[in-house]
């Protein structure tokens, strides 16, 4: 067995892909325009919403105060709202599923916040501090969070593009070809990021749902989706790279189609297992993680879709526009 693991035997061992390929064939490359259209139909409303409405900002981006208060005497929302209104701090009151109240105010002064809390205790009832949270974010920190997040996305994307170009530089066409692979992966990645952000913009601003709030956990989710999206795309591209070597008689379109078919089972199964884990997180993971799990769920499904139906067709289109010598 160890003998078979020797490097350099790959070529002689290579199984003829035409035999190994599944018999059923879907011509994904031939119908690429349909898939591009589907993506656009999903993405465009999201982009419109992002431009027109922006996002529903979480406390770490908006700045200000957010209290998660659990009252021991279980007051109604009206009671809490009335008490908050008397404070004159532009407070927004929301009640969560387990009876905790989320109150947002614009104060940033500690003494004022403590006074606010003790006033509420007097008017509504004692606060269960063990089950409460209190976030206060100044404008400086909020601005920095957004800036460093944007920087992280740009730097990570650039590095991934360079890494892919480096890894795929050995296929026919050299570095130019490498950047075609890397660039297509990057476009698919942007597709996933826009789709995810668009859906959250719609959830947060059109449906006014708290789950559509953009906070640092959402940011984490976007960055994870970036990683996963590239992950999926690389698996397909890696197969294309391999098939380009072992089956030089096929056209590039045929190689790409074949590679998609060969990796489809893996893409579906892997995405499915991750979706299983995320579903359990979404259903049982507690309030704080729900929005995060939903974002990941959307992003991972989108990532699996885009690697098959966007990244690879894009690669074919790109190679047509900018041919490399075979």
């Amino acid at each position: 067995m160890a003998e078979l693991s020797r490097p350099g035997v790959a070529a002689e061992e290579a199984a003829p892909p035409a035999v190994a390929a599944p018999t059923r064939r879907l011509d994904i490359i031939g119908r690429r325009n349909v898939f591009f259209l589907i993506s656009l139909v999903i993405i465009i409303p999201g982009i419109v919403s992002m431009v027109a409405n922006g996002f529903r900002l979480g406390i770490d981006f908006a700045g200000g105060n957010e209290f998660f208060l659990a009252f021991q005497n279980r007051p109604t929302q009206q009671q809490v709202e009335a008490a908050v209104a008397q404070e004159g701090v532009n407070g927004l009151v929301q009640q969560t599923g387990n009876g905790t109240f989320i109150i947002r105010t614009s104060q940033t002064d500690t003494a004022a916040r403590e006074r606010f809390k003790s006033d509420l205790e007097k008017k509504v009832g004692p606060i269960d501090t063990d089950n409460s949270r209190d976030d206060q974010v100044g404008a400086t920190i909020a601005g920095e969070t957004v800036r460093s997040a944007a920087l992280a996305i740009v730097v990570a994307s650039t590095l991934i593009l360079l890494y892919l170009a480096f890894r795929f530089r050995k296929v026919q066409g050299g570095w130019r070809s490498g950047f075609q692979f890397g660039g297509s992966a990057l476009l698919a990645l942007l597709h996933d990021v826009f789709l995810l952000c668009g859906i959250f913009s719609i959830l947060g601003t059109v449906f006014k749902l708290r789950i559509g709030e953009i906070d640092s956990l959402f940011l984490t989710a976007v960055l994870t989706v970036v990683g996963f999206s590239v992950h999926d795309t690389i698996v397909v591209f890696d197969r294309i790279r391999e098939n380009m070597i072992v089956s030089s008689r096929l056209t590039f379109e045929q190689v790409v189609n074949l590679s998609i078919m060969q990796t489809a089972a893996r893409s579906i199964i892997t995405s499915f297992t991750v979706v299983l884990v995320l579903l359990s997180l979404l259903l049982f993971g507690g309030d704080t993680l729900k929005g995060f799990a939903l974002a990941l769920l959307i992003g991972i499904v989108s990532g699996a879709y885009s690697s098959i139906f966007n990244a690879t067709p894009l690669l074919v289109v790109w190679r047509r526009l900018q041919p490399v010598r075979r």
Partner: protein
Amino acid sequence: MQFVTSGLVRAIVVVLLAFSLFVDGAGYVYRVVNHYPLTGPVPGLPPSFGGWPLYMHYGLDLKGGTDIQLQLTDFPPGQDRQSVQQRFIEVVQKRVNALGVSEPTVQPGGGGNHDRVEVQLPGVGTAQAVKLLGEKGKLVITRWVPDSSITAGPYPGFKPEITKMTSDMLTSASAGLNPQTGAGWVVNFQFNSEGAGIFNQLTTDAYNVCQSQGTSAAQCHVTNWLDLSPDDIAQWNTKGLDLYKSRDQGGKLISDPSIPNGAIPNGQGYIEGNFSQDSAKNLAILFNSGSIPVNFTLLSSYEVGASLGAQSIKLSVAAALLGLFVVIVFMVAFYRLPGLLASLALLSYAGVVLAVFKMVPVTLTLAGLAGFILSVGMAVDANVLIFERFKEEMRAGRTISAAVDAAVRRAWPAIRDSNTSTLITSLVLIFAAPIQVKGFAVTLAIGVIISLVTAIIITHNMLAIVLNFGWARTGGLLGVARGRA
């Protein structure tokens, strides 16, 4: 890159697994023997090995407490910013330690500007934390000097003048009961010789005025303030009365005693100020820790109740276990024997990762927990890639052992490239991301690296070992249409 199933590689795997078992096992044996709870730090000697802690460190969002970001301003001119920041941190640490907080962290930030400090206090509320940090803690002692322009304030015609005495001249301060009456709390203090000399002069002057003009005269008093500044005195006509209020009422006054009974020569005495036990203790802590050398503002604070954090852990762990269980059921149903082996690899993966988290130590936050759960998904992916490839190679007509080797070798470039890109993302996040995302990036990066090792080496080795047995080489167990030995 080849993973030869050599004795050396197998030895590494065994050492790795033994390491994770040792870390977890030793920690839990210690806890059970000593009747401590199974998670979190334990009092006294914690489970540790050669200085490495063997318990999970939880972030504030999981164990409850306060996180405060401070912006330092008004650095004293001509001083090294970094050393000013360091001094600030030392003072804060002394105050925090005096409060008896377990596992506090006080970290410098702000990069080259040295103008940020982050303070994390488990089990302490924001109000208490801010009270602790919110004052520079500088004892200011003033005498009263005549000034005809002063028309308002506690003593019209007089304003306070800051003396050369500072808290730095204090050698000790402590809270105690009033030594004369035995009731009511006071703060005892002791000045060094320089301070004692100045204090002797001050009290002598005041005593002489008391003798000639009575105790209601302004200059009969030696007044104690907390953080009274020259700016405050410059606006004495408008702000004087407010500043002359106690700290509870928003002023800066500690006490304003008259000196009717003679000078205090030895620099030793006590401050009466209608203290409660807590406020006397807090004041003593402030004096003992020294004064904070710069001004600062609160950038953000974050407070989580303890039960809320415990609940988050419970829910996330339950979700993680459920997810792991579902994945294992799915893998075994779909891939049979290899699926079972991959599940074992997955469990050892989880064991190694948790052991590494304890040793490093990684502070586990909610986002960090999510990163760990996600890395489990990535570990599964590597196995799926290998098994799908294995089925393909079997269909192409290889023998079982040849197919296993070819599958691992052919799947490797995809596994390497995809995990490298995830690693790139998490490394960028560790360095560039906002602080809340860092915990996630750290656990994801550790998870990805370890999953590469377990998925490729452990799964491959287990397959190779098990396939030595004839009973394992059947198509049904391997999940392929036909098996050839």
